[in-house]
């Protein structure tokens, strides 16, 4: 019944999605903390040059033919001018 | 004065490493040994034992006596007698002081023994082990009893389990696994079971298996014996037990 109205995902798609997620973690075997740290470091590096929207950041693994790719989508708000600031704490207010 | 240290057991790869303090009075040692075995009966049952007499040599009679205590009723087999110069047992994990529960007793991996040269003779082959080993419980797949003598099992022998004896085998239950009687060549032995439905039966050097398709299992105790080189199965009732072996 829900097939027509509620558009509940078919069980096989649920399975597929869950598998994808699990496998991504399995294949990588990178601890979540490590992931987070990596993410923070990347953000830090990028935000030296551009102002970014932190809430819109996507940072995930994609599987392409049993090869893993790290895919980051980072919305840029504006390009920083006046060169590189070394003051990391001041970046947000720039 | 009796000391707990006079008799000590350690679990090692080959079985149990038993150290006796030769300076202690032999009768005291025997008593201590019996006590220890009794208190840990289930834990120890069926293992191979390596006896370490420390720096004091034991007489043949004494070793025999120890062998008897171990063998009956605990089914422990004295495999080797050593005299550790250091007086220290090899470093292996100590068994947990208390018996966990009945570990599948008789089951030992016989990797170091020769499966084809049926039952390993203990290096100290003087003296006689009790003729019959009594085993209470079900022998499950992968478990194995090998004994120099007769074996009586009060319980079932499941498929995948093996019983090997140089003498007769009696299963007071269902025999569905493998039984090998007369493992060292005695062809006058028998295999008896309340329900005889083995995967395979061996008597001396003869190997038999149930007929294809299976004629069904008799609902009465049966006995399998060697007759003219083939294994013959008959109802137990009415068969005469030929003499005493």
């Amino acid at each position: 019944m829900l097939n027509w109205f509620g558009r509940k995902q078919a069980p096989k798609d649920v399975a597929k999605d869950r598998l994808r997620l699990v496998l991504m973690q399995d294949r990588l075997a990178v601890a979540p903390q490590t992931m987070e740290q990596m993410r923070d470091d990347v953000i830090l590096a990028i935000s030296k040059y551009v102002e970014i929207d932190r809430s819109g950041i996507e940072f995930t693994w994609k599987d392409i033919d049993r090869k893993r790719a790290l895919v980051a989508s980072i919305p840029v708000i504006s390009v920083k001018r006046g060169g590189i600031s070394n003051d990391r704490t001041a970046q947000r207010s720039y | 004065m009796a000391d707990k240290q006079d008799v000590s057991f350690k679990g090692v790869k080959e079985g149990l490493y038993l150290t006796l303090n030769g300076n202690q009075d032999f009768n005291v040692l025997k008593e201590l040994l019996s006590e220890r075995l009794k208190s840990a009966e289930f834990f120890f049952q069926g293992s191979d034992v390596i006896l370490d007499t420390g720096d004091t040599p034991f007489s043949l009679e004494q070793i025999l006596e120890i062998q008897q205590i171990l063998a009956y009723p605990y089914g422990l087999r004295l495999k080797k007698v050593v005299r550790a110069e250091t007086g220290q047992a090899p470093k292996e994990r100590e068994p947990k002081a208390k018996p966990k529960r009945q570990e599948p007793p008789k089951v030992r991996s016989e990797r170091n023994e020769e499966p084809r040269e049926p039952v390993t003779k203990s290096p100290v082959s003087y003296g006689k082990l009790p003729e019959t080993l009594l085993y209470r419980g079900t022998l499950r797949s992968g478990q194995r009893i090998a004994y120099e003598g007769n074996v009586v099992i009060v319980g079932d022998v499941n498929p995948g389990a093996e019983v090997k004896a140089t003498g007769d085998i009696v299963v007071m239950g269902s025999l569905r696994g493998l039984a090998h009687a007369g493992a060292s060549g005695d062809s006058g032995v028998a295999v008896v079971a309340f329900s005889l439905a083995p995967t395979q039966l061996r008597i001396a050097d003869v190997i038999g298996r149930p007929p294809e398709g299976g004629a069904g299992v008799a609902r009465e105790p049966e006995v399998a014996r060697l007759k003219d080189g083939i294994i013959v199965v008959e109802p137990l009732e009415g068969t005469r037990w030929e003499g005493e072996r």
Partner: protein
Amino acid sequence: MSETIVITSGKGGVGKTTTCANLGVALAIQGCKVVMVDADIGLRNLDVVMGLENRIVYDLVDVVEGYCRLRQALIKDKRVDGLFLLPAAQTKDKNAVSPEQMKELMMALKEEHDFVLVDCPAGIEQGFKNAIAGADSAVIVTTPEVSAVRDADRITGLLEASGFSKPELIINRLKPKMVARGDMMDIPDILDILAIDLVGVVPDDEYIVVSTNRGEPAVLQESSRAGQAYRNIARRLMGEQVPFMDLTEKESVWEKIKRMVKLG
């Protein structure tokens, strides 16, 4: 040329042993000389599935340890010519054999057989390492379930790391009707995730249970759908191009109604 193929899965209960038995029989029927090796030491089962359990005298461990000659331990199948079984030991554990010994054994078996099929134990420990040692190629068995596919992925990774360049996949116990309803992952879904080559799909078939009970592989039963699938896979292993069976099975109107009523 002869080939040693290890049949593995990671997860237990997906049908490795059944697959091994059926492929063994199917290959032998095609005229190949085949030996099936039960590498599941301590938990042997291939003998029972083949109905040869009461013929075992010597086993793999006996051979490896030198208590008997290899030929003595090989059990000839009672139905098909050119098919042999090397049973596992039941009263010993996996550590009784080393990968080096297995390699040696596989070499010896390859000399006299066209196909050596190794039934791998579940898991990724010693037993797995032993089973893949000396194998030329690997067939991974999975079922269309999340857990089985996940383990198949893990095994694929491990096999690739061990130098198996192209493990192939068998999808077992596919239920075409459930697939049609979208209740079960379909073949493309699984292939998409695992990204390895498919060598066959075996439909779920109740006859497998019967055949296992009897100790007669389903391949011997002409009418068994699973048996047909295994026959096809065997021919593919021999290098033939065999089209995949059409497994699509639409629900009948009646079945659809029944399901609706149940759900509604």
